């Protein structure tokens, strides 16, 4: 297990550094390619944003350095019956404004996270009830058993009910909101850092919260975050010592940074799968010259797109070898089956399939793509545009910063896309999340959260049945078989085009020790910086 080893090494390094940690006095400067827009923890379900807000807010549970679920705001929990989870809350926790943390806040957050406009609705099942037993005990009553309920909760952050009500922030801020809400510009969490100032897209300053209930492992006084979109500028900032941590290091510059005397690159496989989706739900594509019908509804067209994309070439050229082409919609560390082989790249077959489907002359479609989210995202999309052009599908590329991209294509924006590229790490680190959130039908009356991030609108009831069985199956071998069957169904439907898992690449100053997590969340509360 490669992840295990690199995690172990990183953790060890972190612990060694810890032994000589002086008092909190350091300023750590961090630059990411993307900006932090909203501070509202329910606006955008995206790892970078969740990582940022994970310094400020906390969930009932958290993920440790090895990605295991550990207690956080909930001290312990039990399941007295399969449909009832009981959480015992910590009694020594205060929000940054001094409000005590109680069961009311959990009940409030459970409502808010499922309210309209939230991008985290699937965190708590729609038909689940959160019931306050006493000030420090909360029960979650489910209608059907869910053995992995807490697996998603490390990024379901608990908010202060009193604060939200006092500041007109009871409703979550939707990603597509054009005017910022109070909660998107201010925070009141329980986490290790408070936000001192926040200028979206410019600079965010975090200050250590002295009243944190955990003993800090970091030695930081503050974290200064600046988004630096230009990859060369980001690398230059790291090499010149202007910033201490950057994410990501552009693949072309990894060697250069490694060779430098004052910084290095932490690398490892990431659990994120990058894939291409095609809108197969609408009867007519939103952005295409074909009117009255949707070419992507035809399975032959989807297969043609799949076969026209050469992932190995993308790996060798765009990713410079730093990606693992993927047959499945999950990383091999999460689920692997030797029977799942990626169908071959075959542009001639693709052309023939298109001709059979009645599109011998191709068609035009717009592709949505982020340009500051994944490693080389816009370059990958450009490469795909070229590959599809060769089978006569003329793609108009709309590559834009993630804030605009997500606001347009995600559920709060109305899934406004015809063809897109997205990356997904299941927050549960389990296939079920992908089967449910990414590939499940969007219009399931019994489960409105199903398919929340299924921008393509892929829908196969047989697939959903398998996904439901996966959720409740306790026997690992049987469960794996069900997962495999589900993926086979979706592959037969050519539902999505999985591309690859990208490599993690964090640029870190030699003065800084930190822990790299395989979910690519930069958690600086484990970072220590040498005295200057």
């Amino acid at each position, binding site marked *: 297990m490669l992840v295990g080893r690199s995690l172990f090494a990183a953790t060890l390094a972190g612990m060694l550094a810890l032994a000589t940690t002086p008092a909190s006095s350091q300023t750590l400067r961090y630059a990411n390619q993307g900006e932090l827009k909203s501070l509202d923890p329910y606006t955008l379900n995206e790892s970078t944003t969740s990582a940022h807000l994970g310094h400020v807010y906390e969930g009932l549970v958290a993920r440790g350095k090895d990605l295991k679920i550990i207690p956080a705001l909930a001290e312990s929990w039990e399941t007295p019956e399969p449909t009832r989870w009981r959480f015992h809350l910590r009694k020594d926790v205060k929000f940054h404004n001094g409000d005590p943390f109680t069961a009311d806040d959990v009940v409030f957050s459970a409502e808010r996270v499922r309210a309209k406009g939230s991008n985290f609705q699937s965190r708590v099942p729609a038909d689940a009830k959160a019931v306050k037993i006493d000030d420090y005990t909360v029960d979650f009553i489910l209608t059907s058993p869910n053995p992995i309920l807490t697996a998603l909760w490390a990024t379901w952050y608990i908010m202060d009910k009193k604060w939200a009500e006092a500041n007109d922030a009871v409703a979550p801020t939707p990603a597509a909101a054009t005017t910022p809400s109070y909660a998107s510009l201010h925070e009141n969490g329980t986490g290790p850092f408070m936000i001192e100032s926040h200028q979206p897209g410019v600079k965010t300053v975090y200050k250590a919260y002295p009243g944190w209930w955990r003993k800090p492992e970091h030695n930081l006084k503050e974290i200064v975050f600046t988004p630096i*979109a230009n990859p*060369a500028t980001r690398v230059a900032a790291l090499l010149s010592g202007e910033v201490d941590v950057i994410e990501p290091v*552009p693949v*072309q510059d990894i060697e250069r940074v490694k060779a430098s005397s004052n910084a290095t690159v932490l690398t490892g496989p990431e659990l994120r799968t990058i894939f291409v989706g095609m809108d197969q739900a609408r009867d007519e594509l939103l952005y295409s010259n074909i009117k009255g019908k949707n070419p992507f509804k035809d399975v032959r067209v989807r297969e043609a797109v799949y076969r026209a994309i050469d992932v190995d*070439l993308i790996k060798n050229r765009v990713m410079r070898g730093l990606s693992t082409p993927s047959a499945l919609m999950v990383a091999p560390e999460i689920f692997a089956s030797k029977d799942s082989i990626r169908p071959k790249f075959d542009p001639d077959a693709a052309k023939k399939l298109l001709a059979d489907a009645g599109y011998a002359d191709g068609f035009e479609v717009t592709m949505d793509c982020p340009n500051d989210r994944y490693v080389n995202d816009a370059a990958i999309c450009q490469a795909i545009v*070229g590959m599809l*052009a060769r089978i006569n599908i003329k*793609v108009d590329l*709309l590559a*834009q910063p993630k804030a605009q991209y997500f606001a347009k294509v995600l559920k709060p924006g109305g899934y406004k896309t015809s063809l897109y590229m997205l990356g997904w790490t299941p927050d549960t680190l389990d296939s079920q999340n992908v089967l449910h959130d990414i590939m499940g039908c969007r219009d399931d009356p019994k489960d409105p959260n199903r398919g929340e991030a299924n921008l393509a609108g892929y829908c196969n009831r047989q697939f959903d049945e398998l996904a439901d069985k996966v959720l409740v199956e306790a026997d690992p071998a049987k469960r794996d078989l069900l997962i495999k069957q589900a993926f086979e169904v979706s592959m037969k439907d050519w539902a999505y085009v999985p591309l690859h898992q990208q490599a993690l690449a964090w640029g870190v100053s030699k003065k800084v020790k930190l822990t790299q997590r395989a979910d690519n969340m930069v958690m600086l509360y484990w970072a220590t910086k040498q005295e200057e």
Partner: protein
Amino acid sequence: MSEAVVPHTAEKRAAAPGWFRRALDSDLFYSFRRSRIAMIAAAVTLLFFLLAIFAPVLSVQNPFDPAQLQLMNSRISPLWTADGQSPFLLGTDEQGRDVLSAILYGMRISLLVGVLGVVFSGGLGILLGLTAGYFGGAVDGLIMRIADVQLSFPAILIALLINGIAKSVFGNKLDEMSMLAVLVFAIGLSFWVQYARTVRGSVLVEKNKDYVAAAQLIGLPAPVIMLRHVLPNTTGPVLVIATINLALAIITEATLSFLGSGMPETMPSLGTLIRIGNGYLFAGEWWIVAFPGLALAALILSINLLGDWLRDALNPKLR
């Protein structure tokens, strides 16, 4: 100057030499022939224009057509280096785009935006300058105060502002051609002031001269007097500004594109190419940024030298 009021006789017209002959005999051409720098600059500028016009013939691929880009051919270094490959004289970028073809096509965009920007800003500036100078009074005050306010901002800031507004109005749905139009508009609006002020100054001098009074006496309408009689006498300074502004407009376009708010990567101008290439400098892939940068520098330098010469040649004090 008196041509407008003294009609030509038939004999005179027949005896007059052709325009080409007259151009060769002019002071301007004499000064041109004597300035080696001007001749070289003119030749280089002409060459760039020709290269841009004939880009489709000269390029090995159309870099704007994704179907012609082969990812297989990406990141090839220039031909004379160890890893060079024919036919990619100046190497290729990450998408397999031939750098030379991209420069030629990018130059088209840069020159097109530059020329259209100059025409737009020139037209606007001349019109407003003529109006302000000819009518004077409140009209003059209004136009010139607007110009003063605009002069207190750097032109690039105004271009960015207009660009930003256009983007928020039209959303991100702008395709390449409308992006080009927005750029022309933004550049045009940022550079009209200089024309307006210059033209207004010339008009103030000219409008009290007898030929204008004569034209007014025979009852010609104001627009005709302004355009047919006053305007031709302001062409010298306007020409100088236009030449220097062409270089400025191209640079502004390149700056906007470099900042990411100009031409998109699917239809790159020189500025966009420099932005793309900038990301590969640390990796040692210098050719992706170096050659577009050199091309832009050479183009701007030659146009600027030409503009400088023109300014000196038309300045009577320097003769």
